[in-house]
């Protein structure tokens, strides 16, 4: 990584150029990244990569009047290492001209002060990228011991980032992040040749978590190989679980986002009962979890309660601009959520006939229409007597029609962006399958 004096020299060069151009309002975002990447085909390392970059983006803001109203336009420019002073000036001048054409109502930038840099407390920071790669690789392949079901291919990325944000309203904050993420494909060759796709994402050296996830993925793929038929077309009691849960709750994050509300794509407002007046299933309680110390604009991040027992507590995300327009506190953007689990054990949910979809080719939630679904890669169908693995067909549900009746399991599930009930139950969901 770059030395501190070099970082400060680049930012000083930008500040000097901003002053020469008479730009009073700005945000400078500097991100240094060092990553180590390994790509595997079966158990062979196919390619190793390293990436060392230093990226700077400067957003400039211009105030002007239009039709008697105060406006503030913005535009961003990339500043590259090694740019001459005149090149920096030209890039910022271009952004300044564009900003003066962008007619958005006036808003205020988040204010702050110089804060001490926040170091990473991740164990990854202690042992470095190479040793971390070795341990994560070991965890990834630890359960890959059988001949019929195995890891077909995998990618592991380890990244160490430094982020520094400076704005014209006093914000001067910096923090360090370690990330490990990747993907792997599991193949099972008998009784039929199939595969499933999986992703992982951690902020620490979660070797136990990765090993457990791979073990589950191997078992799931074995079941996928045993599944031959699609479910019959019809309506089902649907159970969703695991990684689909976060995607499902995207609906509430999107609908409560200030940019969606300001642009009238969403009618959410604080105090609104998002599941309606008559909640027949579980009332939703959803908390926003701060993962990074600051937002992309330098707003200090903290945990916040978004929905309490089905009632919306605040509007969130969307940046300081939309929060200002709506007269609400800017919160910054959130990736991780925590949902309160229900009271019904998962085994109780499975006492009546159900379709439990555990893998989609691409599970999607449409925040505009509320429709969710996708093609079924693997589901367990219980007809009241036997459980059969099925594959193929698609489901199409609408959260707006189903949310008053959704029931959460009492068991918990957690990944990098979600903490909450392991499963949810919906009744009367349409499935297109075999005739």
């Amino acid at each position: 990584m770059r030395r501190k004096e070099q970082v400060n020299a680049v930012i000083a060069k930008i500040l000097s150029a901003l002053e020469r151009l008479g730009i009073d309002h700005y945000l400078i975002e500097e991100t240094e990244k060092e990553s180590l990447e390994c790509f595997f085909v079966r158990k062979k390392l196919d390619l190793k990569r390293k990436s060392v970059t230093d990226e700077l983006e400067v957003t400039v803001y211009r105030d002007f009047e239009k039709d008697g109203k105060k406006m503030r336009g913005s535009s961003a420019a990339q500043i590259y290492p090694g740019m001459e002073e005149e090149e920096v000036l030209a890039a910022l001048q271009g952004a300044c001209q564009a900003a003066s054409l962008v007619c958005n109502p006036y808003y205020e930038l988040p204010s702050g002060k110089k804060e001490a840099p926040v170091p990473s407390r991740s164990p990854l920071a202690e042992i470095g990228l190479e040793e971390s790669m070795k341990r994560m690789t070991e965890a990834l392949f630890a359960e890959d011991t059988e001949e019929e079901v195995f890891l077909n291919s995998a990618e592991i990325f380890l990244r160490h980032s430094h982020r520094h944000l400076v704005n014209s309203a006093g914000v001067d904050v910096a923090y360090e992040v370690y990330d490990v993420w990747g993907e792997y494909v599991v193949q099972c060759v008998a009784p039929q040749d199939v595969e499933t796709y999986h992703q992982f994402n951690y902020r620490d050296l979660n070797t136990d978590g990765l090993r457990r996830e791979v073990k589950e993925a191997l078992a799931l793929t074995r079941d996928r190989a045993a599944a031959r038929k699609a479910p019959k077309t019809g309506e089902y009691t649907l159970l969703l679980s695991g990684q689909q849960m976060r995607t499902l709750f995207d609906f509430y994050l999107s609908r409560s986002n200030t940019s969606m509300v300001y642009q009238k794509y969403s009618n959410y407002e604080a105090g609104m009962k998002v599941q309606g007046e008559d909640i027949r299933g579980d009332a939703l309680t959803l908390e926003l979890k701060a993962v990074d110390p600051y937002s992309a604009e330098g707003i200090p991040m903290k945990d916040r309660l978004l929905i309490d027992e089905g009632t919306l507590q605040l509007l969130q995300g969307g940046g300081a601009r939309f929060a200002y327009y709506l007269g609400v506190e800017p919160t910054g953007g959130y990736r991780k959520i925590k949902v309160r689990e229900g009271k019904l054990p998962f085994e109780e949910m499975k006492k009546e006939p159900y379709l439990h979809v555990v893998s989609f080719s691409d599970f999607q939630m449409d925040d505009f229409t509320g429709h969710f679904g996708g093609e079924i890669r693997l589901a367990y169908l219980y007809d009241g007597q036997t459980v059969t693995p099925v594959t193929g067909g698609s489901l199409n549900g609408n959260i707006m029609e189903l949310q008053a009746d959704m029931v959460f399991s009492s068991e918990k599930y957690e990944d990098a962006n979600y903490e909450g009930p392991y499963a949810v139950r919906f009744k009367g969901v349409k499935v297109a399958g075999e005739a």
Partner: protein
Amino acid sequence: MKVQESDFIRRETPLLKELLEKLLAAYPYASILAVDSKARRYSVSKRNMAAGEDDLLTSRGFVAKVWDGKHYAEYSFNKVVPEELEEICARIGELVAASDRLLPEGLEEKEYLLPEEERRVEKKTSEEKRTGEKTVFEGSTEYEVDPEEMGDDAILKFLEGLKDKGLAMNDALLNLSAFCEYQKYTKLFLSGRKELLQNVMWFNGGISLAASRGEEIKSYFKSYSCLGGAELLPRMEEDLEESVAATVELLESRPIPPGEYTCICAPDVTGMIVHEAFGHGVEMDMFVKKRAQAQEFLGKYVASPLVTMHDGAGAVRETATYFFDDEGTLAHDTVIIDKGVLKTGISDLQSALSLGTEPTGNGRRESYRRKAYTRMTNTYFEAGDSTREEMIASVDYGFLLENAESGMEDPKNWGIQCMVNIAREIKDGKLTGKVFSPIVLTGYVPDLLKSISMMGKDVELGGGGFCGKGYKEWVKVSDGGPYIKARIRLG
């Protein structure tokens, strides 16, 4: 007019050649890809406006790839100054030697050969490698209207006018967002045998419309694309009325009764099937991993004899057109399916080395920061001889599918997952006016392709979107074809 070379690349070329020489002194093979990409995006809607650089597409940096006689390694960086050349070489050296430190017991590194065209210089000295026979190429795409010359002000005013015109057409519209973007890039590829330079520009536009039915928002998206510049903008006005009408029609739409139907696919839906359902399955890095069912079908019928399918950066002039890929392989026009028979896949260089096949110019990176994978470029079905009217008239009961939204690949099992916004009901050879939405297409790819019974006369390609490998590695692509008639499971 031709797109001009970036000043930055021209200025840095001597230093990059010096770095290449140092690497060639240390390794039997080395290459450097330098990229200077500038992209701007503009958008105007009822309550929001933006203009500025697109941070996904704007970048400036380098990737060095070396082969130590057995293995490949890559190093991405975005700063090159004379005094740091040795440090860059040292970092690459550390990476090359890192395998033992990275790999736990039981795992090993895969061995590769050199690309055929680089082998002739393998045993020469670094000076011989530098000065020996080389493939030298320089090419630029063309444009009519330079968006930089047109300027931010004129572009924003055009979009503002489009937005106002569209919103005035129907009071039911909640919002209309008009946007456009362009990318202008220079890429330089240097190796012992190659010195390639290309300057390319593409331009995209789009209109996103929304109308509400209670809490539910119905949306419609129409995109426009060309290899070129701002000469695309007037095209965005041509079917504005049609797009507004389609959005309002969606307010009356209902989910479709699930089932298998006879469908006529509009060219954008054909393109999505070509790209998502079949194209990903012939990316030959999937052959290396034995992840693609297509590998077992080479030389066999996978589609109706009416189907001939192409992919290639050199096949047509669209947003994924270029002269050479990110590994220095010249662009191709690959015939993948010829009259229903699967002929070949498409390939990046490293996959071709692994399979003992020829690379097809499909090695593409999201940016200099990322690995190259086998990626599609411009992918399409050739035309047939039917008109759209003849095709609709031939349907007793079925649907006209329009407005492709998204899709997901499944090369192993050849399962289809495509999302379409509009299904128009056809009864007794006529459109009834009933509209269904949203629509999920599923099924088995060869079943769908073999069921194609009519092909339209005119091919249309659209390059408004980006393609991911799984959930990442976004690159610009175009896809399309003619109207097609097929049996498809809808839900």
